[in-house]
């Protein structure tokens, strides 16, 4: 990789493995995943519940519980975040890397007014006068499309609607102009109309401020509509990464194919909705070989026996024997 492209990378995750020490033993929620986040792009993470999306996201900002074991590298501009102490991480959080949570209601402290919440972020990272902080808060509220920012500053979180609350969360997250915004299912708790507005907002802020975004969702539709690139996660692994158009038009991994085929928009009328047979394996009992082999329509003997290596081809990455053989032969 040339030097120039290295500089465009905000975040480089290499061989990240996240395990939890639990009563039932050690469980690996994420296994040896690698991905990169380029400057100014929106990277979508799609996968079912328990596929490791949220955990990956929280490991970047260092918000995992204490019973976690981490290995691999998370390089932020060349600095390994996994090796950082808690004190060092506090400087990154909110300043360089921010996060927006799933539940906007629960994520805003009910005992403070919006003004105090926004001010707190500024005061933590670069203390300034109250007027300056107020000006910046108002600015940011305008950027996130709050209709009456002055009035909004005086309110308490519980006086606002869900969509407004999520806008405030986004405003808080972006107040110090971080390079990376982690959005962990930011629209799950919202209705469809508000969901669309929030996604548009994320897109626009990504354009305007140049913030790179990692967007996590279980909804292929949301990711397809918002992201530039998509990583599909299954059972703690990234099984496929590709530009969003390529992924939708030519899914390579059978799991991606299955996900796309089960979108209601893709079904012709009168048919029963298509699903992927079987269920996600428990993380205490991960199948041998390819983790998807017991649900895969193309599975062969090699799939159960040996884990496929990551195949990189034409800017895409896929974890599947089927393509591996094809491209090696071809």
């Amino acid at each position, binding site marked *: 990789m040339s030097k120039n492209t290295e500089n465009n990378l905000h975040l480089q995750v290499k061989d990240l493995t996240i395990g939890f020490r639990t009563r039932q033993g050690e469980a690996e929620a994420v296994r040896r995943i690698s991905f990169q986040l380029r400057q100014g792009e929106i990277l979508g993470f799609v996968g079912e519940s328990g596929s490791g999306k949220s955990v990956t996201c929280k490991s970047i900002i260092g918000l995992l519980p204490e019973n976690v074991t981490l290995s691999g590298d998370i390089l932020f501009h060349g600095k390994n975040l996994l090796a950082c102490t808690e004190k060092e991480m*506090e400087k990154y959080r909110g300043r360089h890397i*921010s996060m927006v*949570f799933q539940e906007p209601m629960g994520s805003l402290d009910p005992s403070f007014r919006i003004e105090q919440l926004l001010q707190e972020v500024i005061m933590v990272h670069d203390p300034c006068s109250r007027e300056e902080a107020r000006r910046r808060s108002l600015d940011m509220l305008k950027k996130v499309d709050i209709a009456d920012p002055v009035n909004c500053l005086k309110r308490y979180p519980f006086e606002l609607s869900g969509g407004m609350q999520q806008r405030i969360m986004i405003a808080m997250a972006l107040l110090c102009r971080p390079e990376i915004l982690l959005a962990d299912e930011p629209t799950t708790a919202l209705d469809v109309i508000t969901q669309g507005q929030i996604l548009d907002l994320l897109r626009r802020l990504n354009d305007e401020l140049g913030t790179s975004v990692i967007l996590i969702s279980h909804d292929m539709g949301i990711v397809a509509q918002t992201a530039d690139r998509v990583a599909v996660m299954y059972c703690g692994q990234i099984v496929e990464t590709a530009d969003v158009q390529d992924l939708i038009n030519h899914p390579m991994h059978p799991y991606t194919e299955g996900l796309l085929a089960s979108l209601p928009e893709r079904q012709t009328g009168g048919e029963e909705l298509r699903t992927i047979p079987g269920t996600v394996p428990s993380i205490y009992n991960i199948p041998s070989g390819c983790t998807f082999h017991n649900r895969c329509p193309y599975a062969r003997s090699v799939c159960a026996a040996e884990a496929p290596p990551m195949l990189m081809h034409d800017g895409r990455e896929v974890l599947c024997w089927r393509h591996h053989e094809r491209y090696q032969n071809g």
Partner: protein
Amino acid sequence: MTPKRNKLANIVRAYFSRPLNTIALLCFILVVLLCVFAPLIVPENYNTIHVNRIFEKPSWQHIFGRDRLGRDYLGRVLFGGRLTLKVASFATVIGFLLGTAAGILCGYFGNTLDTVVMRFIETLEAVPFLLLVLVFEIMLGLGTGNYRYALGVAMIPRLTHFVRAEVMKLRSQEYIEASRSIGCSEMQIIFRHILNNIFPILILQLLRCFAEAVLTCTICGYLQIGFTPPMADWGTLVADGYHVLRVYPWISLLPSGSVILTVLSLNLIGNGLHDALGQKQ
């Protein structure tokens, strides 16, 4: 739609919307003022003995009458109240600060600290409150000043347990994680987010502790393990009048009435505040 601007004003309004709350607060303020300004109110020194005027009935000069040594009983009761309230507030401050601090630390940080401290606290909790006060008092040495410490220390276990549970509830709230995600340090989270959110609960606990301290202080006095004569708190006064309850009932009834008035008004204030705080959202 105009948002309700001032949270405090809402709480105050909700509190005073019930007459009983107002009465309770006024009663408590009255008791405190009477005790604080006792030296200005009493007609004569509460220690002056008049052997020829023992058990004089209440009159306009001496509205509480005189006790078995002919001392002005109004002075005895008010100065007794001063002593009781002083001891109770001192104990409450100690117990409250230590108990809350321990509860917050255990609840927030958990792990080994929590395990060690909580096992110790649970052992103490197994002992009834009054017994615990007595044990601490004996450990600290029986004497005039020590039982305020004993009372304070004995208050710690229950408070720690309670605060810890509340903090643990808060710790798992998403907004605590969210404030970490914007770069707040542990101390900022504890002092800003945790403390602000348990503040209403802490106020209620403070009132409860104070009421309990007044009561326990009285019990200690009644059992004659508080102060040595001629100093007397409400409990000692009640005990003094116990033997003459049938002939001179006011000797016992006046101080015990004061205790009841104080504790009852404290509990009513706490109850009213609880409801008022509950309405804020």
